[in-house]
């Protein structure tokens, strides 16, 4: 019994946006291959067979998958290569509007060589071809979906009662209340060790944790608040399971003027950005909010990504150097009001932050006090989430306190800070030619070992330019009842290994039977 903070939206994988939808899709549907727990998105060794029992790179732009002939849909129909080609067509169809469509942009087409062989044709060679071909796309049953108009697939009955080929089959969905999947006892990769998994929807985190502590539920993916973590840590029946975080909160500076035009009077200046970044004591912020559990990010990445390295060079917390930089650029507090100014213009900016995030609000207050000591006035503007996003996307901000759950692949950093992301997810409009060049070299490096130093250089270049302050990476901590054995958590999909969890017979509760 899992406590989920939100209901699923739709169980049609290309359209599901809710976390619970993704969790369920991960168990009901299969990929061609699965990432292993170290999230090596580059090398073939980082993947294990799933629907495809093997694959080979026929040439630099062709990837051939050989399907496992034993694989069946939950209605008994065999999984075939035509399903793979159909799935690609659905995911990339503009009528479906899948949010994964951009992730599949490098794949030109998927063809069927024979009933058990699907061929992916790429526009160019790059490291993560296997990752892109397998990770974003769950294989869908063509025989159940190909007669439904594409723009109606998400709202079809299938989206409420899906049929997949994963280790668990869909059982029921009581909207807003609970969702159940049961073990596919004849699954071609072996029967899951749990008979069923039930999600109970409890939107309030405190109430969700209470459900765990009261013994009404067995597991929760995340415990965001320190006081709740402490309660769980103290519970004798619960196992506290920390795992690598893939979340990041960071303050993006708008390098252009409001609305994305011209140059921002403060943040258009690299040295000024560096000075402000150096005035932020991120370690204290993280310690204050999370105790020893959180991470100070080494750049636009998180510990779950393989490019993370504690030794990546960052701007230090150095208020002396920050003051020197500001002084040297003529920003001084001449009138003694506590705020530096230059040419009559005060060193003042506004930070947007969402009212939904207590963590970011608390962090912003701590940062505000540090900047004030430096003579920089940072005004806080909490906004309702949809408005916060709208203002950020439209670049109507000086600085915006963003948060991201990062993909397993580091390539997404180019969307956030690369030139190709300007006008899209790169809200601050940072465009560093050196960073772009290094990142692209890293993407096309022949192996993860070769890519690591290039990513390192790219992140260090980005850190030097300070287009953002990478403030915190919150701790990821799950709680699982102690009667469960074999528990392992993959950071990007915490239930990816749930088919291996089990409860010894002597420890079973009535709800386990």
């Amino acid at each position, binding site marked *: 019994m899992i406590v989920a903070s939100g209901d699923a939206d739709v169980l049609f994988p290309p359209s599901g946006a809710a976390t619970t939808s993704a969790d369920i899709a991960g168990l009901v549907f299969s990929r061609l291959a699965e990432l292993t727990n170290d999230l090596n998105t580059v090398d073939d060794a980082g993947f294990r067979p799933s629907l495809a029992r093997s694959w080979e790179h026929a040439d630099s732009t062709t990837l051939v998958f050989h399907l496992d002939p034993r694989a069946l849909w939950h209605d008994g129909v065999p999984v075939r290569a035509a399903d793979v080609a159909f799935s690609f067509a659905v995911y990339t169809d503009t009528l479906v509007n899948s949010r994964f469509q951009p992730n599949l942009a490098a794949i030109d087409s998927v063809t069927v060589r024979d009933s058990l062989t699907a061929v992916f044709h790429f526009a160019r060679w790059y490291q993560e071809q296997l990752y892109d071909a397998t990770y974003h796309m769950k294989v869908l049953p063509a025989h159940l979906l190909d007669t439904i108009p594409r723009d109606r697939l998400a709202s079809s009955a299938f989206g409420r009662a899906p049929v997949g080929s994963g280790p668990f089959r869909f059982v029921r969905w009581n909207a807003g209340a609970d969702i159940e999947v049961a073990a596919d006892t004849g699954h071609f990769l072996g029967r899951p060790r749990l008979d069923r998994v039930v999600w109970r929807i409890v*939107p309030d985190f405190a*109430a969700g944790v209470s459900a765990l502590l009261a013994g009404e539920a067995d597991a929760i993916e995340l415990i965001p608040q320190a006081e709740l973590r402490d309660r769980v840590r103290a519970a004798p029946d619960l196992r506290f399971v920390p795992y690598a975080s893939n979340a990041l909160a960071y303050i993006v500076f708008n390098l252009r003027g409001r609305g994305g035009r011209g140059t921002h009077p403060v943040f258009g200046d690299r040295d000024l950005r560096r000075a402000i970044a150096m005035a932020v004591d991120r370690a204290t912020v993280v310690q204050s909010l999370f105790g020893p559990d959180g991470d100070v990010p080494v750049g636009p990445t998180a510990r779950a990504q393989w490019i993370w390295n504690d030794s990546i060079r960052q701007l230090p917390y150095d208020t002396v150097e920050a003051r020197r930089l500001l002084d040297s650029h003529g920003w001084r507090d001449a009138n003694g009001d506590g705020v530096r100014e230059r040419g009559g213009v005060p060193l003042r900016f506004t930070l947007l932050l969402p009212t939904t995030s207590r963590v970011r609000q608390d962090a912003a207050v701590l940062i505000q006090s540090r900047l004030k000591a430096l003579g920089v006035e940072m005004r806080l503007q909490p906004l309702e989430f*949809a408005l916060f996003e709208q203002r950020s996307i439209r670049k109507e901000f000086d600085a915006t306190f963003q948060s991201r*759950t990062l993909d397993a692949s580091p390539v997404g950093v180019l969307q956030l800070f690369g030139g190709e992301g300007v006008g899209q997810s790169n809200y601050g409009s940072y465009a560093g030619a050196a960073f772009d060049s290094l990142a692209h070299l890293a993407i096309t490096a022949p192996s993860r070992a070769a890519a690591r130093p290039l990513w390192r250089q790219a992140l260090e270049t980005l850190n030097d330019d300070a287009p953002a302050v990478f403030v915190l990476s919150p701790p990821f901590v799950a709680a699982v009842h102690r009667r469960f054995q074999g528990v392992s958590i993959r950071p990007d999909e915490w239930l990816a290994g749930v088919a291996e969890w089990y409860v010894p017979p002597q420890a079973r509760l009535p709800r386990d039977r």
Partner: protein
Amino acid sequence: MLTFLARRLALALVTTAAVVAITFALVHLAPGEPFVAGAEGRFVPPETVERLRERFGLGRPLGVQFARYAINLAQGDLGESFARHRPVADVLGEALPNTLLLGGAALLLSFVLGIGLGIVQAARAGTLTDAALGTIVLAFYSVPAFWLGLMLLLVFGEWLHWLPVAGMTDAALHGTLSTLGRALDVARHLVLPALTLALVNAAAVARYHRAAMLEALGADFVRAARARGLAEGRVVLHHALRSALAPAITLAGLSVPALLTGSVLVESVFGWPGMGRVAYEAIFARDYNVITAVAVVAGVLVALGNLLADLGVAAADPRVRRR
């Protein structure tokens, strides 16, 4: 009586229409848009946003959108949920009965508690009992419902294990129970959320009812009853209470909106799959059709509540029918 009923019904329709128009305008004019960015700011290509806006007719002038919405609404079509990819009628059809169950139970409980407290306070007016109950009532009246819910959940769910903490049923075992077992399962899950809503509302009812009872206890017919030598208990419960119930009927109608708004947070705290939670999530997702539909349903419920209260008062007091 028929004229009275027709007049009240017309007023209820006009009120609901006004709620629809105002809500429609507010949700569409409020800053923030659906589709612009998904959760965690995943980029949605502008052409995708445009296609979705086109599909749901959001690019058209607001007046045109409203006219279209009103025509569809008149035909019983509430539109499609942007976020849930399904008809709004289906979404609300699942959630509304749960909210009605919770709201109905809370309303009943709050009036039983509130009227009981009001009677005791009025009968003991000016005594220590009256003051103590008044303080307790004021305390419940002052606390936010969601905080009270969390406290009840902590004490009766997590610490004492007397009642389930969350949900409407035992998600793992409900399906294995008998019909009676299922009903009891729902009833056990109903206790804490209903009690949370009821305690806050009961406080208001008690305060009103105490005043109404005091007025009734000072009335001539009560003095006459006492003069006839009736026992005080009979005077209070038989004579004064009947007279003081009319304001309570009106208050019941007026309590419907308070229970509906209160249920938004209480449903979230207790994981109760009702309309309040649907509304809460729809607001964050800018799911216009769902927000407007919730307002329509809430408007109808409030108008219906007021109508029933008016009818109840009219039935009890012939002078009202003649107005």
